């Protein structure tokens, strides 16, 4: 019997009991569409987290100054400047796993345009900072090394600041803003980056050369960096090596005795990102597990109906065997019947799952991401369910003794 013949016989048998076949396949339809919708939700969440971390920059380490202890109150990291400009130079020059390093000086201050003002975060840094973060310009030009060297009064504005000071669609490049009464020329506007994973608005900030920042915004000792150092490793694999190199270098430079605590702290944002990612991964797996269970239940429904069908059609099986059907012909027939049920479930379940995912994204604003491979896997898995749960009933049919089967009433 050709595969096409087997399929034809199977479809005819299924069409004899249309409602029953449909209800049986409904379990698989729901299972497949649930798998697709759930994975789409999980992947959407994962993509959103990944996107958020991408805007933070990749392979990032942050080096913070040490803490002060005054009268028993310990000040926390960064409260005592221990990082020097020489440290920064040393990190750039000596830590081979480090690609870029930049200072981060921060303060909050009102920024004033001709007719508006807005209090935002004022950041002093070097051009490498934008490489580390992976941030691009929307218009104008970047801070340059010469700006840093000569302490030019130029600023880059984030999109939120532009909107607050000049209006949403205004071009701020070339304008002048005043910070602490000093006039600064806007040389560039950064492209929008959205929120950080913690909800911080990256676009609500002003950036200037760190030399200018120290001269005009917040002084402090010339030798020390009144902030932190942000570092990017050459690749994600280099992050632990970069961390080790920086730690050894700084302990060495700060003459920290062996066994004593670091007088600085290194934060690994990649670790944080992967922890978040893992959290989302767990949820995705959980959703997928629940959906897979529903597919499994659908499979059990198929097995149940196939067993009923084998019993009902014992006589038919006997007749087929009497005229020459081999056990494997009978096996194939019932297996193809259950496969047809699940394949139909898969074919109907896919668009239903896609529809459900789209509905969730438009109705509830959930980020969804449809993955082609998951759709293929879901359909393939429903086929596996068909074979797995159809096998026992089909074997039961194939093992029937033709004489007993013919006598069956």
């Amino acid at each position: 019997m050709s595969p096409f013949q087997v399929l034809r016989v199977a479809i005819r048998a299924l069409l004899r009991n249309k409602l029953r076949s449909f209800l049986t396949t409904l379990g698989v339809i729901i299972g497949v569409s649930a798998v697709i919708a759930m994975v789409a939700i999980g992947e959407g969440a994962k993509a959103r987290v990944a996107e958020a971390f991408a805007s933070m920059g990749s392979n990032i380490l942050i080096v913070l100054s040490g803490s002060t202890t005054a009268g028993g109150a310990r000040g926390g990291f960064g409260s005592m400047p221990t990082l020097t400009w020489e440290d920064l130079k040393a990190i750039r020059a000596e830590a081979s796993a480090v690609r870029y390093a930049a200072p981060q000086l921060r303060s909050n201050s009102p920024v004033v345009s001709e007719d508006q003002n807005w209090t935002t975060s004022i950041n002093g840094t070097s051009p490498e900072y934008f490489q580390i973060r992976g941030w691009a310009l929307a218009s104008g030009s970047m801070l340059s090394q010469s700006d840093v060297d000569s302490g030019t009064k130029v600023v880059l504005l984030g999109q939120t600041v532009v909107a607050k000071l000049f209006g949403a669609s205004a071009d701020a490049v070339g304008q002048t803003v005043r910070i602490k009464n000093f006039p600064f020329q806007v040389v560039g506007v950064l492209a929008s980056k959205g929120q950080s994973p913690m909800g911080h608005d990256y676009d609500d900030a002003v950036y200037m050369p760190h030399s200018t920042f120290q001269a005009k915004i917040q002084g402090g000792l010339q030798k020390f960096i009144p902030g932190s150092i942000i570092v990017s490793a050459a690749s994600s694999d280099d992050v632990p090596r970069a961390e080790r190199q920086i730690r050894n270098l700084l302990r060495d430079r700060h003459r920290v005795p062996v066994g004593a605590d670091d007088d600085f702290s290194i934060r690994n944002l990649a670790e944080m990102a992967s922890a978040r990612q893992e959290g989302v991964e767990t949820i995705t797996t959980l959703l997928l597990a629940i959906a897979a269970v529903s597919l499994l239940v659908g499979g059990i429904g198929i097995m149940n109906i196939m067993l009923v069908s084998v019993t009902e059609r014992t006589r038919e099986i006997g007749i087929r065997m009497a005229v020459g059907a081999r056990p494997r012909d009978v096996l194939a027939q019932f297996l193809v019947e259950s496969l047809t049920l699940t394949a139909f479930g898969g074919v109907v379940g896919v668009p239903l799952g896609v529809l459900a995912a789209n509905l969730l994204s438009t109705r509830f604003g959930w980020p969804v991401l449809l993955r082609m491979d998951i759709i293929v896997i879901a359909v393939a898995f429903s086929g596996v369910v068909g074979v797995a749960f159809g096998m026992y009933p089909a074997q039961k049919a194939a093992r029937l003794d033709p004489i007993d089967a013919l006598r069956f009433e």
Partner: protein
Amino acid sequence: MAGPLIEVEHIAKIYRMGEVEVHALRDVSLAIVEGESIAVMGPSGSGKSTLMNILGCLDRPSRGNYRLAGREVSQLDRNALARLRNRTLGFVFQNFNLLARTSALENVELPLLYAGLSGRERRARAREALARVGLGERAHHHPNQMSGGQQQRVAIARALVTRPQLIVADEPTGNLDSRTSVEIMALFQELGRNGITLLLVTHEADIARYAARVVVMRDGRVQSDQRQQPVEAVPAPEAEAGEAP
């Protein structure tokens, strides 16, 4: 053909029902040559159905040898037996055993489906077989639209369609009235004239008259085995073939 079509030597069939062993066949030897028509008779429990199942390759003997068309078949596996049933013989049952909700044509095509013939060839041969049993006009009727006699004709067409050497019929007239029975027997006799071997199991002496040889079974053994001049089956004139009652 050189040897007999069917040759059984000292076959026995023992069923185990829990603790008890049931000797359905004790010791049967039989040779049937091609073209013969044999009626196997005997009371119920005599082993005639068991013998028919073994000769029809639905079952295997517990002991003894069975050669069908010169080939030893007593030890073949289920797949090989299925092939034999498909190629070498055809079955006719008391209760017709047609697939319900399936047209006469498709019922007749069924054995050819398992023989792996193409759709076109299947249909052509099924039509030919239906024409041979006088049902050429009713190819698309379903079993529930036909009389018992017509259903049995479809079953005979199904048995014939693979062009077998042997037809095994188990009480083929058991569910039919006497006039229809004669029609069916006339059909069998006509097939016999064309060289088909007929093995007929029946408990009706009336039906056995139409066979050239009568084997009587008792307690799992052959009690008698006699040749006779068969009575020619002549259907009553008003019994038009293919007419519903």
